[in-house]
């Protein structure tokens, strides 16, 4: 076994806050060998990124390394002064950030940023540096690099930018790369390519890679070794196969269990039971006083015909001068009463736009939406308000979907107040009840959103959505911003709603495994067009279109999982 390029010994990071000393990382130790990829996995706040920052010496003050040692190629670096640390940074250790959109300086060409880094570390002449930079761009598979060299970041797509970032990381022939959630912001297809690239480069250049991620799928596909972190501590580490194959620690088990499986459809999502995070969702009580009287005549609740949406791409005074971009192009499907209809597709495929048109948030440019036999497009104000009473929406980002300046009570009450469904006196108790049902403590009523975790906020949104006892619920990527464990809880809640209350749902997601678990039927969208619509199982077993097949292939899997594990999950 070769010597580790980087070894972290008993690393502890502390942040002095007004409420005492907070330790985001405690006694973490691990090694990275040349050409090896170590995945560091855990939920947000587990301290995985903090470790990476500590290694590269980029902790934002007042955070500091309080204990432990960091050794790089046999030399201790945690105690070096700022200047020496700087030289190592981007030299022997390079870094890749999560969001390619923000990690490049918008005012400099890609070339300038590459050349400056290369010259800094390798001291080449500008012409040499330039040719080297172009070579790098070519290496990270950016088509016609000579031309791209002179372009600005905003002229690159997300995936391309992340490749540029990688190229930047490679400028100085580093021996270690810290990649912090390098693919989280990317679409599945891009994600796969970028991960492959990283793998390949690690092997080829014998670079040790620390791959920080929350995605078990990524771990499974990419890493050799895994470190599982929980609340600042390492709970378990070892080779990827053994961690995924035979996890010993409870947390690891639950974490793995929580990952949605594309292969099989399970009744419920296995929830992370570790640390007693689960909070009860009292669906029965909710179901008791839910009025289910209204069922649609036809059996089809929502009918979408030739739906089209165009956005202004280039404005001008003369209509003739304006140019448009078609986000949704002649999309047609229908949703039966009480079914969960899924829409999958990559970002920009127009799935969210469809959702927002159904929710009357966007005006429709073409086609019709029919709800329970009534044509929504072209309703007058009164009918619209009646329609809105029956539909509700759950948004992707639990942080922006709740007004930070309104108390949770007011937020949940707002629909009731607006639609005058209850008298002032009744509203209060009703809201409290709702909050209690979705599993929030009674004091939630007075609190403000920022006092809740992401999962809890999603519960608040659900409470708000249920306030009007809607018939149709639109879920726009409801869990993509959450950790796996929380994701499981929320998805289960949605399942319950659908089963016990007979809610009809439109479920938007880019995450195929989740879709497989949630939906009865699925539509696949690409560039504003609906590629195919099928029963979920049929779609996953025998996709009709190549695009769907492609998507399915790219889907990260946990092959290492043995059949019996799945069996045991099934129960």
């Amino acid at each position, binding site marked *: 076994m070769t010597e580790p390029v980087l070894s972290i010994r008993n690393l502890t990071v502390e942040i002095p806050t007004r409420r005492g000393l907070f330790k985001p990382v405690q006694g973490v130790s691990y090694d990275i060998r040349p050409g090896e990829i170590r995945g560091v996995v855990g939920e947000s706040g587990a301290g995985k990124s903090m470790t990476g920052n500590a290694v*590269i010496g*980029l902790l934002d003050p007042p955070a500091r390394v309080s204990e432990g040692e960091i050794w790089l190629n046999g030399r201790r670096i945690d105690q070096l002064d700022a200047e020496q640390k*700087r*030289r*190592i*940074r*981007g*030299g022997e250790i*390079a*870094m890749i*950030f999560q*969001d390619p959109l*923000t*990690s*490049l*300086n*918008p*005012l*400099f060409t890609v070339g300038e940023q590459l050349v*400056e*880094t290369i010259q*800094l*570390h390798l001291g080449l002449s500008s012409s040499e540096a330039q040719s080297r930079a172009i070579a790098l761009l070519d290496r990270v598979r950016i088509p016609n690099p000579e031309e791209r060299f002179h372009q*600005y970041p*905003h*002229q690159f797509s997300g995936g391309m930018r992340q490749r540029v*970032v990688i190229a*930047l990381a490679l*400028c*100085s022939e580093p021996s270690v790369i810290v990649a912090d959630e390098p693919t989280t912001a990317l679409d599945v297809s891009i994600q796969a390519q970028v991960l492959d690239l990283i793998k390949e480069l690690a092997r080829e250049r014998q670079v040790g890679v620390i791959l920080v991620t929350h995605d078990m799928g990524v771990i499974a596909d990419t890493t050799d070794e895994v470190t599982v972190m929980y609340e600042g501590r390492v709970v378990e580490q070892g080779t990827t196969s053994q961690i995924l194959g035979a996890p010993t620690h409870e947390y690891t088990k639950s974490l793995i269990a929580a990952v949605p499986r594309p292969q099989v459809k399970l009744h419920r999502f296995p929830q992370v039971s570790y640390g007693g995070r689960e909070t009860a969702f009292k669906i029965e009580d909710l179901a008791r006083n839910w009025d289910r009287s209204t069922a649609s005549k036809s059996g089809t609740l929502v009918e979408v015909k030739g739906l089209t949406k165009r956005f202004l791409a280039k404005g001008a005074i003369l209509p003739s001068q304006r140019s448009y971009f078609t986000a949704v192009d002649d999309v047609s499907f229908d949703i039966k009463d009480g079914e969960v209809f899924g829409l999958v597709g990559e970002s920009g495929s127009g799935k969210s736009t469809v959702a927002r048109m159904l929710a009357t948030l966007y005006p429709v440019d073409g086609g019709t939406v029919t709800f329970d036999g009534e044509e929504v497009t072209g309703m007058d104000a009164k009918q619209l308000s009646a329609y809105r009473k029956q539909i509700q929406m759950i948004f992707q980002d639990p942080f922006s979907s709740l007004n930070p300046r309104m108390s949770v009570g007011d937020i949940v009450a707002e629909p009731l107040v607006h639609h005058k469904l209850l008298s002032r006196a009744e509203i209060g108790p009703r809201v409290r009840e709702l909050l209690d049902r979705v599993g929030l403590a009674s004091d939630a009523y007075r609190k403000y959103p920022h006092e809740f975790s992401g999962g809890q906020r999603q519960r608040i949104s659900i409470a708000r959505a249920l306030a009007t006892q809607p018939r149709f619920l639109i879920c726009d990527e409801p869990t993509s911003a959450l950790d796996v464990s929380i994701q499981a809880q929320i998805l289960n809640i949605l399942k319950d709603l659908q089963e016990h209350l007979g809610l009809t749902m439109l479920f938007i997601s880019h995450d195929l495994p989740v879709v497989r678990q949630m939906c009865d039927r699925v539509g696949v969208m690409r560039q504003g067009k609906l590629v195919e619509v099928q029963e979920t199982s049929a779609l996953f077993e025998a996709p009709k279109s190549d695009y769907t097949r492609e998507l399915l292939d790219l889907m990260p899997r946990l092959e290492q999982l043995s059949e019996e594990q799945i069996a045991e999950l099934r129960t």
Partner: protein
Amino acid sequence: MLSFIVKRVGQSVLVLLVTGLVAFSMFTFVGDPIDNMLGQERTMEDVERLRAQLGLDKPFVVQYFRFLEQAAQGNFGISYRQGRPVAEILMERAPATLELAAVSGVLAIVMGIGLGVFTAIRRNGVAANLIMSISLIGVSLPTFLIGILLIYLFSVELGWLPSFGRGETVHIGGWSTGFLTESGLKALILPAITLGLYQMTLIMRLVRSEMLEVLRQDYIRFARARGLGDRVVNFRHALKNTMVPVITVIGLQLGSIIAFAIITETVFQWPGVGLLFINAIQFVDIPVMAAYLMLISVMFVAINLLVDILYAMIDPRLRAAS
């Protein structure tokens, strides 16, 4: 890019028209020139005759349009007070104000940006906080008071610098400059400081906050992660991004410097358009006032147009967009 410029120019013209209207309507209220133009023993006929000659008896709208069409040809009429073409007087006075404004503008921008960057980088340093606090005194004292105190200190008590006027000027073509003579430069110091101080503090504080904003961005952290030194990060990457929002504000500031010069010029008896304007107001010299206001707005609009273009040049995203 071109269409962008064309659009802005169009808007600018619109702005000018409205400005002209407001400017002009102002004068119907500030007094009556006749009494100033006639002496102690004037009679009613004199007044009426003069009124008619000046067209002051015409309805306001008529006066305005006459003014507009004249102004369009660069003809702002004859000054009631000096009996000379206003354009000529302006040409004569403009250099003084422009030089003053330029010097204090440069002062404000250079010092402002410099100190702003410094205080941003050394955010918690003693020096930085000191500068921030002192700078506040700058914005907390009325300009006129600063001017008077400076005069009292440097010309009366110490006798180092002239207390008023522009010193020796040299004529190059139609332009009279005080840059080429010692006395001219000495005379510039106090007024320039008085005028520039306020703008400087504003710019400095703005640069600071914008820079702090930028320094928190990912690409700055990434730049550091690439091992770039503080100097490169701060002055190459951060500063350029800071300038994007700052430039617009600086534009507005420069625009207002020329207007603010009114106060400074009164205190220092600086022979510029500001002083001209104050005299004009006291004398109700309507053509001069009108011309002055048009001049101000033209400069203001021009500067901002320039800024917009500069803006587009710095920020590639905008370039692509337009």
